[in-house]
């Protein structure tokens, strides 16, 4: 993909000043920055909760926290990491990169963009308020797990559940508006000559992710609305006493929940598909198969939800259908993994931090994918269900998958955002410590899970002690290592690394975003570039 740009940058960028620049921002770059910082802050909030969990699990027995508080920690950790870290980080990256990658001056709907960001602090303010009230001795924060199964969350939910419900409503509205904005931008604002099949893979994966969001976030909104009316207005959607059915909650939740897990991984696939060709100095192998694989994964995500519910007493025909449909997902995912490996094959590779994270992603995400295949086998799932094996599986796909993708993306694009190269030595320290500690943290969970340690329990049998102690050591190393990342980002943003980035930044990079100056000007592509 090559682009000719008429160099007409007026260098008097009229940036608004003061707090108003951020509060009233309609600039895709500023909003992207806010999303990314929001996600980063939430990463440390949710991460601290994970450390409370791991500290309690360091030894068998109850040492640090009450079981009731432990449940609040697992619930809020999950909710914050899913809705407050991974999703906003992806939206932030989309805000920054999609307009620059397709040659658009901004997002299609800048005011809505502002609104979708500023709903998030409100949503998480509500959620965290419930924890603050709990710490002050006023009832409990949500304590029913991030999946909030009824009737635990309806009939037996604490009073703060209503805070949680409105918080989820606001997150949902924010995500839906963000997704509409991204689709409108991609459909209407592409530069002349940028056909769909010339779009960078990151744009493609986000395009498909946005459709997934639009299809399933309203279903989640419906589920929490039913909870709200069950709790407060006397309906019985999930209450067997009134003719409802709690198992139906699980069907509705996972109809949202399964596409949601692809919402949290497809943009990472996109990021990796940008980074691997750059550092292998080759074009991506199998561009169109990448696009079709992404679309197939998105389609399949709608017909596999009940594999989360194998133990609810489904008929054998249902178990078989959902088992085989789930296995099918391995095919398009395998296409992607082989394409990345083929892209590296015989390439002139260098191993800067983004590439290291990308390679670790391919390796470790694949491990998470394989444990997913193990879990999808219905008879085996009866053994694995609700054990630490499941915890190990989804942390491999979400931490070493989604989060590694985001970290790779930040290192890859931060020179373009700030105009400065990050500190490569610190980046490598961050990478190696993170990768090693993530495996020390999550790998032993496979073993204790297969041996039968249940998840969401603050205490455990003594035979699980050694592996849990290992996991806790890994967790603390992992957690504090992220401070290196924070320091590196701040150092780069402030220009203290002393190395200016060139426009192209990376030797092997290609695409419209690398034709802009570094740092990218406040207004870019006011005249659309011509893509050939």
């Amino acid at each position, binding site marked *: 993909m090559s682009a000719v740009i008429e160099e007409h940058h007026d260098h008097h960028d009229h940036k608004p000043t003061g707090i108003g620049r951020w509060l009233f921002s*309609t600039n895709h770059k500023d909003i992207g920055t806010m999303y990314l910082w929001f996600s980063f802050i939430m990463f440390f909030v949710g991460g601290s909760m994970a450390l409370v969990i791991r500290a309690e699990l360091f030894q068998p027995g109850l040492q640090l926290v009450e079981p009731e508080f432990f449940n609040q920690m697992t619930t809020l950790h999950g909710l914050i990491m899913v809705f407050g870290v991974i999703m906003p980080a992806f939206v932030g990256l989309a805000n920054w990169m999609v307009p620059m990658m397709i040659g658009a*001056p*901004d997002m*299609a*709907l*800048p005011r809505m963009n502002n609104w979708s960001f500023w709903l998030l602090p409100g949503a998480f303010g509500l959620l965290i308020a419930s924890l603050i009230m709990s710490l002050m001795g006023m009832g409990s924060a949500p304590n029913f797990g991030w999946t909030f199964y009824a009737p635990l969350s309806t009939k037996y939910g604490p009073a703060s559940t209503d805070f949680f419900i409105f918080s989820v409503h606001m997150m949902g509205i924010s995500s*839906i508006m963000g*997704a*509409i904005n991204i*689709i*409108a931008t991609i*459909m*209407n*604002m592409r530069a002349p000559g940028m056909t769909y099949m010339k779009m960078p893979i990151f744009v493609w994966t986000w395009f498909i992710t946005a459709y997934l969001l*639009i*299809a*399933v*976030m*309203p*279903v*989640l*909104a*419906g*589920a929490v*609305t*039913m909870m709200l*009316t069950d709790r407060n*207005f*006397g*309906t*019985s*959607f999930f209450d*067997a*006493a*009134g*003719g*409802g*059915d709690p*198992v*139906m909650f699980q*069907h*509705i939740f996972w*109809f949202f929940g399964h596409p949601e897990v692809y919402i949290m991984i497809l943009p990472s696939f996109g990021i990796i598909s940008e980074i691997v060709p750059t550092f292998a100095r080759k074009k991506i192998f199998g561009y169109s198969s990448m696009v079709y694989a992404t679309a197939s994964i998105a389609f399949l995500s709608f017909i596999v939800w009940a594999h989360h519910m194998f133990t609810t*007493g*489904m*008929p054998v025909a249902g178990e078989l259908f959902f088992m085989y449909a789930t296995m099918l997902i391995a095919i398009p995912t395998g296409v992607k993994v082989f394409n990345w490996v083929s892209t590296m094959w015989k390439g002139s590779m260098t191993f800067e931090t983004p590439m290291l994270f990308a390679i670790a992603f391919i390796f470790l995400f694949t491990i998470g994918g394989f444990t997913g295949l193990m879990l999808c086998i219905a008879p085996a799932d009866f053994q694995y269900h609700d054990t630490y094996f499941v915890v190990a599986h989804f942390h491999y796909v979400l931490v070493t998958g989604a989060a590694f993708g985001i970290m790779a993306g930040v290192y890859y694009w931060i020179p373009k955002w700030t105009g400065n190269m990050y500190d490569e030595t610190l980046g490598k320290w961050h990478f190696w410590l993170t990768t090693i500690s993530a495996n020390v943290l999550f790998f032993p969970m496979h073993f204790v899970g297969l041996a039968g340690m249940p998840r969401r329990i603050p205490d455990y049998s003594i035979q699980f002690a050694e592996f849990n102690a290992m996991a806790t050591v890994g967790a603390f190393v992992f957690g504090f290592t992220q401070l290196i990342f924070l320091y590196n980002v701040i150092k780069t943003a402030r220009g203290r690394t002393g190395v200016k980035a060139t426009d192209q930044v990376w030797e092997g990079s290609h695409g419209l975003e690398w034709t802009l100056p570094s740092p990218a000007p406040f*207004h870019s592509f*006011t005249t659309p570039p011509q893509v050939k």
Partner: protein
Amino acid sequence: MTSQPKQQTNSNAKVIGRLMLVVVGMFGFGFVMVPIYDIFCEVTGLNGKTSGKRLTEVLEVDTNREVVVEFVATLNEEMPWEFRPAVDKVTVNPGQPTRITYVAKNVTNKDIIGQAVPSVAPGKAATYFQKTECFCFTEQKLEAGEEKEMPVIFVVDPDLPDDVTQLALSYTFFIKPTEASKTASLAHN
């Protein structure tokens, strides 16, 4: 911002309009899943849901086959009654109408209205379990301290799969939600 050409603004509006339709549609779909789920369970007999309808036709009796039907009584935790079947199990021929009774007693000192919800195990037998009379068809009111026999007349359909030799009929008695909280339009079976 540069001024966008008119045509593009229109097409943004069109995209938003279409996508909002999807959003509203999917929000509705979440709620449509409720009746779909009920119908699906009733048709397939999943969850042991039996047909809520009264059997009116007479079925042919298969005297060569015997099926054991066991009776289970459960109370929802908020229901303060006593509730048990008069007999634990009976052996019947498929097609033969059989009358059994359950006994319920209101041990509190106030009148309570209850609703029984039936369930049949194994689930695949649920659709072959027919009732011609059941206390679960209507709400039951017991005055303070009242004890009542509650009859069920059932027929096991002769088409019952051959590998099913034993059935369990379970009733759970729920306290009727107060008038104010009756807004849910979910069908009781």
